[in-house]
């Protein structure tokens, strides 16, 4: 079943499009980088505040609220460009240990972001929960990036 899906994916029009010229794949990859800079950068900005770094100018909750659309936009770019790259070599990625690690961390990071961390950002959240959530969030997203880098090596 999975094999058939991967075969279909590798022969899909978008997979062909990514292989059509040498610059297309790195261009999509660059968009992937900009997407994760936007999402993880904005997430980190809030996490650092939750950890108590930086001068407090105004509420962290308000900052998180203002950044949320950009975080989501970054996640959307990531989740569109990622599968596009995956489609060019579905079987290879599927069997790559770094890719598997990255997907596990990504699932955890996304789940965590939209559940516990959302609560931790709330102004009434206990400080200890906020710090724990911020640290966990930073570790999970760093693991996603590191796992991504390792795909080319393992």
């Amino acid at each position, binding site marked *: 079943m999975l094999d058939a899906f991967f075969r279909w994916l590798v022969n899909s029009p978008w997979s062909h499009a990514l292989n059509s010229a040498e610059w297309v794949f790195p261009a999509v990859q660059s968009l992937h*980088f900009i997407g994760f800079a936007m*999402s993880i*950068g904005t997430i980190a900005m809030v996490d650092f505040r939750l950890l108590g770094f930086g001068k407090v100018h105004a509420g962290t909750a308000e900052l998180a609220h203002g950044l949320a659309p950009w975080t989501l936009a970054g996640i959307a770019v990531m989740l569109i460009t990622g599968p596009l790259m995956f489609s060019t070599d579905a079987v290879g990625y599927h069997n790559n240990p770094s890719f598997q690690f990255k997907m596990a961390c990504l699932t955890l990071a996304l789940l965590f972001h939209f559940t516990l961390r959302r609560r931790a950002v709330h102004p009434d959240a206990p400080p200890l929960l906020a710090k724990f959530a911020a640290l966990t969030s930073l570790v999970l997203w760093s693991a996603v990036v590191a796992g991504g880098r390792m795909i080319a090596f393992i």
Partner: protein
Amino acid sequence: MTIPPMLDWVQSTSLSVAIREGGLPYPVIGGLHLLSIALFGGMLLVNDLRFLGWALKSRNVSDIWYLTLPWKRLGLLVLVVTGLLLMWSEPIRLYRSPSFWVKMVLLALVGVHALVFRRSVYEDPEKLDAGITPQARLAAAISLVLWAGIVFAGRMIAFDASFDE
């Protein structure tokens, strides 16, 4: 193509060999480079989007500027240090890579950009709290284009036909 002798020397240093052939160091340094793209790039995006008047409009421009400044600096520092280490590890390959030179030219343009807009925009971000000037918008737009180009040129290095020694 003639290779400057200095690059032969760099490539033969033990640090260069250790990063290039040590197994783990190269991807770890690359991973740190990538993480600092998220840190520096994220802060840069937030700033430029605020300068363009698209993001965080309820907060002062200078507020966002000072909030992101330390992280932008830390991110840039790690980017530069890891970038230099990666350059040290394979100078001859990079010397032959057209994308590497495009990236270096774009980085030089970032320096020019900073000098050009220093007086009118970056020296005194509080000035922009009253209203975003056209120069600030222009500076932000150019910054986004330059850095997107740097990311793309950097990524292209891996695809340049310069692997053959």
